[in-house]
């Protein structure tokens, strides 16, 4: 039996700046996640650096897919090790300096939670007798 693997991205970044050094992208099929040693051997930009100068994060397959497809840049927050995206401004198509923010996917999820919490609060308030 052949097992198809869905391998998420591994993003190597500069620990000082958060700039992305290597994105291994997503892979599908008879493929496995690569080791750090394999990645260092494969990507010249990692070969020439000290191990202490970079780190990496791993994402699940499909994670932040919409953010990656709509963003115009991404980096890893060197303090929190969380990925951040910059998005084009539809109101101002002229290229600007990127502004990195939390993924819109996460922001929307948080907003949904807040709305649900508010709804629950309103329901409780309106159904509680004076």
């Amino acid at each position, binding site marked *: 039996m052949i097992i198809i693997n869905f391998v998420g991205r591994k993003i190597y970044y500069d620990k000082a700046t958060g700039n992305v050094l290597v994105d291994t992208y997503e892979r599908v099929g008879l*493929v496995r996640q690569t080791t750090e040693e394999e990645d260092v051997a494969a990507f010249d930009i990692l070969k020439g650096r000290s191990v202490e100068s970079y780190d990496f994060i791993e994402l699940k397959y499909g994670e932040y897919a919409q953010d990656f497809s709509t963003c115009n840049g991404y980096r890893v927050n060197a303090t929190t090790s969380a990925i951040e995206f910059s998005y084009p401004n539809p109101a101002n198509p002229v290229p600007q300096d990127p502004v990195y923010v939390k993924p819109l996917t996460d922001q929307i999820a948080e907003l949904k939670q807040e709305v649900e919490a508010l709804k629950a609060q309103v329901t409780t308030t309106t159904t509680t007798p004076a």
Partner: protein
Amino acid sequence: MEGWNKPSSGGSTYTHPATHPANIITVADEDNHFTSTNVEEVLKELFTSGNSGKILIETAVISKGGTVSKAGTIATFSELDAGIQSIGAPMRYASGTVNSQSQGSGYFYTNETGTYLTGLGKVVVTGLTFQPKLIRIYKGTAVNPSSFYTWGNYQKNIIGNYNYMSGMEDPSSDLTVIVQHKTTGVPYNQGSNLAIVTATGFTLPVKESYGQYTWEVWG
């Protein structure tokens, strides 16, 4: 002591040797299976015949799309068995995206005057769980026939003035890229081992040093 001996009591005794060289023992070969007439030469004939049979089977397995992985020059029967089992096995597949890199040190090939050529980028993919027989790389994420390159057995694709072909030059492990001129067909030296396909990945040349390429492999 072997041979004729003269004991102290007089007379002669014969001690037969414990072993005999195989080349002095004749074979009757009543059904005329062998051209040789002694055991030593007949054994050589048998060995050669066995090897020839193995080579024939290996060639047949490969021609039917199977793979024979052998540790030595001649496959063992177990290795041939595994090769026969591989015929008709489901095609394995994997795909992904990779950013190309500068070629770095080393060369992919030389031109017709023996000059090493540079200026190409390379893509490096690792983490495969099988050795691909066919590799397709294309720029971006959409399959555009004018912009993809294929490396595989008997596949020819043109980059500049060159056709790239890969074949089992080194049957012990890796596929080696062969480069030849697209009009003259003259093969060129590979230059170095930059281009390589292994059991877990590949490094192959592409046109750009900093571009996003999609890759697909079959094997």
